[in-house]
């Protein structure tokens, strides 16, 4: 799966959980840049992504994830 395809699916997960599409996700995007992305919604987004890609993240990876770039790298390593 190309990076663009991954990003596209990640984008879908964000829209599903946050119930808006008022954001542009790039490698550098963090929770501070997206309205409604905080501790709780982050957990919901992670669950949604796990479902979309049929993967299961490791807590060790989740613990060191700081931006969208980290998230995509972790997804790439899991699929």
């Amino acid at each position, binding site marked *: 799966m190309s990076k663009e395809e991954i990003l596209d699916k990640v984008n879908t997960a964000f829209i*599903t*959980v946050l*119930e808006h599409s008022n954001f542009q996700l790039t490698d550098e995007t963090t*929770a*501070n840049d997206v309205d*409604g992305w*905080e*501790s*709780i*919604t*982050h*957990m*919901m987004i992670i*669950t*949604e992504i796990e479902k979309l890609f049929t993967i*299961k993240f*490791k*807590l*060790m990876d*989740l*613990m060191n*994830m700081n931006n969208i770039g980290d998230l995509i790298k972790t997804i790439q390593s899991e699929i």
Partner: protein
Amino acid sequence: MINFVQRIQESIKGNYDNNAFCIHNIFYTYYDFAKAVSKIRAAISEVIDDSEKLIGLVTNDDLETYATIIALWLEGKAYVPVNPASPLERNVKIFELTETKYVIDSSETTMYEDHEVILSKKLSDTHINLEAKKISESQLAYILFTSGTTGTPKGVPITFGNIEGLVSAIDKDTEFNLLSSDRCLQMFELTFDFSVVTYLFPLLSGSCIYTIPKDAIKYFYIFKLIKEHKLTVLTMVPSIINYLRPYFDEINAPDVRYCSFGGGALHADIAAEWSRCIPSSSIFNYYGPTEYTVYSGYYPYDKDTNCKSHNGIISIGIPLHDVEYIVVNEENQEVAVGEVGELCLAGCQLTPGYWNNKERNDEAFFLDKKEGKNIRFYKTGDLCYKDEEGDFMYVGRADFQVKIRGYRVELAEIEFHAKTKAKKINMVALDVMNSLGNAELGLAIESDTFDTNEMFDYMKTKMPNYMIPTHVRFIKEFPHSMNGKIDRKELKKLFNITNN
């Protein structure tokens, strides 16, 4: 007599070389803390008139914010905390309700221009002075605000005598005994009353307090602290382990000695799974409303020997030392063992009453004659029963108050603010369960679909983040029950967020 403030002073002095805080991965010793307390204290006594007792505190995640609490207590003053992430309008309202003129703020610049502000990060060091002033039991130590039904937050004042009661009750309990070598989690916003036990008890014991940065993903940061710093004492709301549950098989934390839960129902199934992640730890299921100074009792949980539950919710156990529990019917009369009623609390940890709110005080407190004495009881709004062995079992809420991530939320307050921007439209706020068993907020709107942005923008200026509904459904006509009331149960089904 107030002893705990002097004990804090002695503990700080006796543990100068120990770490007191780990904030953003930086350690601060008790000596660093003593210096921070002293400089803030010097500024308080220089700037603030002795008669001003209620002082605003902006709750940043830094050493100065914690030092301010202790500095205020040594001066015999109360802190009125406001969360910098909450709407400014709500925070200003809290200062208005408490007539707070002075604010202590560790931010670079302050938003509270209409107040006298002490910028605590900009103060210069002074000599160390931790001597406590003479403090009486009835003086206030803090005022916290919780959600109120009419759109105005409700103030709960807690006195030094109330905290003394809490400290003495925990002291008398031999099951929980912190050591100066302990490393303790402090995951709570300081406007939330559970935070009081997570900074106060470690400070009294010379232990180290590990905080969570405001911008961190809480759940993973807690795991990181447990793993990298080998925390020994965890105090959490149950929703933390609900969210971590999918990853339990990766968690093994044998250093944890104590794990205390509170601020929401602890479910038996998840508690059993969690206890395998912390194999050496005791688990306590604490109960207590803000009005009763954090804790009023607990149940010592053990997955094999002590796992009493009702409808899957673990027992709240028995009251702490000097705390009285009764279960009453609608006429405030005590009911028999095994019978469900509203749990009421009495004892020295009980707030003197809501801040300037006679109407609410008349509803929430009542006097009961016991052995010839009038005892003041607080009605918790929690439905419970006492079992044959004397343990109290939690059944549910008696009103429309719900818990969202440990915070108490009056659904009526959300509806009140939502309706201000969408007049004449029926709206119902609801707590709905997600797939992990956590409550989230939904807003059901009886109308054709419309753009809710303006309404939500308005709500965000009136209420903190945790009170903003995360799910919206438009419904042509609300379902009603047989007696004509809106059928909340049916409405909840329309949210169906478990399959998302």
